[in-house]
């Protein structure tokens, strides 16, 4: 199994004009070549997702959403793509804003808080494949790496809340810490079940297994339940409504990011949308067959020959995984604009008394299921 980084190193090492023993140069070049696309992806993802969020919320509330700002003179008019330049304008505005740090804040921690959150989201992308072999580094512990790195982000949230020296921020940070730690457990447990069935932690092996058998969502009732638990806990870990008590604007102004503005605030935003994309991509890979074509799976059950209308292949794979991830992101937005926020005690109740017992029982029952039918 080759990864994106391996092929890059091989390519650069094979070039004639690269001197011998230039491991250092190759290392730096490859790091930049790998980091830039991830950063670009995160930025683009945030811009597109914000526009999508505003349009989806507008649609759900029977409004039009952003309609005025065009891009390069293209305004779109009174159709659903009106205001297509809104997020670009917003991003430029955010970058031009004055950077304020409260006088009583702890300067150093105030500054590094958002970057820890961003760094965690950024590093998580290293392990997530978006197609066959299209992964930055193919660890033998894929899933575990992603869970471990994304657990760092909460430290950034706590630091930001504490360093702001603001009651609302501190409350937001405390709630966020309690929530993220609680919901890490059901996430891990529901993934454990998939790992148990496949016998590997690698994303590639999980998708290969699904290619040979069926998607995990349809594999057994227990894996379907695990998907629900994973997705709901994932939404909770991203701090989105109905689980957004850390930044509940009606009680805490904006929670841990109350004191942030301009560029630093936009880093929080970038990380939140990047985390959304991570949860959507992970659900798509682990439970919805990743880059496998749904048509291929469907036709193969009827014992049809491999053909072009299966829409399978490396580039179709990227298309399918994007479609699945975007659909899941849409579900997150749908949920956000449909349900009200939970109370903190209800949130803890859902995590500790519903999700974790169900996830534990799930592991037990899927073992029996695999023994009897596997």
């Amino acid at each position: 199994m080759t990864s994106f980084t391996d092929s890059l190193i091989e390519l650069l090492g094979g070039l004639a004009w690269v001197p011998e023993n230039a491991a250092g140069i190759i290392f730096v070049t490859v790091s930049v070549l790998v980091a830039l696309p991830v950063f670009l992806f995160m930025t683009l993802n945030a811009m597109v997702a914000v526009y999508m969020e505003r349009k989806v919320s507008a649609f759900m509330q029977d409004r039009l959403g952003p309609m005025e700002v065009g891009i390069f003179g293209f305004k779109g008019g009174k159709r659903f793509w009106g205001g297509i330049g809104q997020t670009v304008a917003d991003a430029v505005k955010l970058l031009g804003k004055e950077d304020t740090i409260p006088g009583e804040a702890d300067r150093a921690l105030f500054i590094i808080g958002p970057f820890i959150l961003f760094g965690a989201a950024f590093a998580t992308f290293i392990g997530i494949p978006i197609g066959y072999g299209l992964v930055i580094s193919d660890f033998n512990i894929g899933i575990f790496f992603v869970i471990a790195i994304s657990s760092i982000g909460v430290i950034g949230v706590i630091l930001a809340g504490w360093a702001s020296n603001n009651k609302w921020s501190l409350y937001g940070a405390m709630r966020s810490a309690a929530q993220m730690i609680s919901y890490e457990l059901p996430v891990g447990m529901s993934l454990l079940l998939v790992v148990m069935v496949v016998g590997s932690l690698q994303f590639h092996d999980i998708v290969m297994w699904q290619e040979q058998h069926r998607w995990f969502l349809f594999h057994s009732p227990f894996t379907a339940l695990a998907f629900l638990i994973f997705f709901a806990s994932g939404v909770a870990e991203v701090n989105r409504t109905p689980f957004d008590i850390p930044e509940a604007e009606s009680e805490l102004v904006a929670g841990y990011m109350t004191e942030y503005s301009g560029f630093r605030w936009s880093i929080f935003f970038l990380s939140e949308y990047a985390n959304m994309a991570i949860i959507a991509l992970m659900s798509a890979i682990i439970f919805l067959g990743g880059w496998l074509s749904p048509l291929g799976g469907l036709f193969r059950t009827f014992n049809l020959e491999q053909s072009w209308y299966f829409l399978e292949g490396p580039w179709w794979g990227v298309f399918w995984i994007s479609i699945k991830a975007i659909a899941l992101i849409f579900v997150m937005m749908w949920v956000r604009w449909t349900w009200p926020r939970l109370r903190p005690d209800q949130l803890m109740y859902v995590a500790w008394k519903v999700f974790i017992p169900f996830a534990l029982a799930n592991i037990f029952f899927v073992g029996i299921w695999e023994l009897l039918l596997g």
Partner: protein
Amino acid sequence: MTASLFYLFAVGLLGASLFVVLNPNPMYSVVALVFGFANLAAIYFLLEAYFIGALQVLVYAGAIMVLFLFVVMLLNVQSDADHPSLPRVFRIGSWWFGALALVFIGLFLLLVGRSALALLAPSEVPPTQIGSVSQVGEALFTRYLLPFELASLLLTVALIGTVFLAKKKI
């Protein structure tokens, strides 16, 4: 290449650890400790022990450090910056400090020497397998089963104690 990366992370780890003990502000110490753990995880990654590296990040940096942060935040631990004079024992120049430093340096050299000797001896396990999930699992459930179970017992006792202390009205 690997060697220079190792030195980079080792310097980061040592620097962060020194910062943890020498810094008067407990919040900064916790953050430096997280940074140190990240560097340690990176060293494990260099050794291709991905599982242990990720465990390091998940358990220490992700969970235990969050608890540390909670404690430091909620107990409102005062910064020592207001009274910067260290206890006599730790002042550079006191003979105590010198003796202590010598002991620690000796211990450090001993440990480094021992692990260097262990590295020279050929290992039975192929290097890419060390620290993989199956290796760790096998070691935990065969050779170290008793300590593993005892540790879980200890955790259970701690958990019951916490519930008992926190919920007096049950």
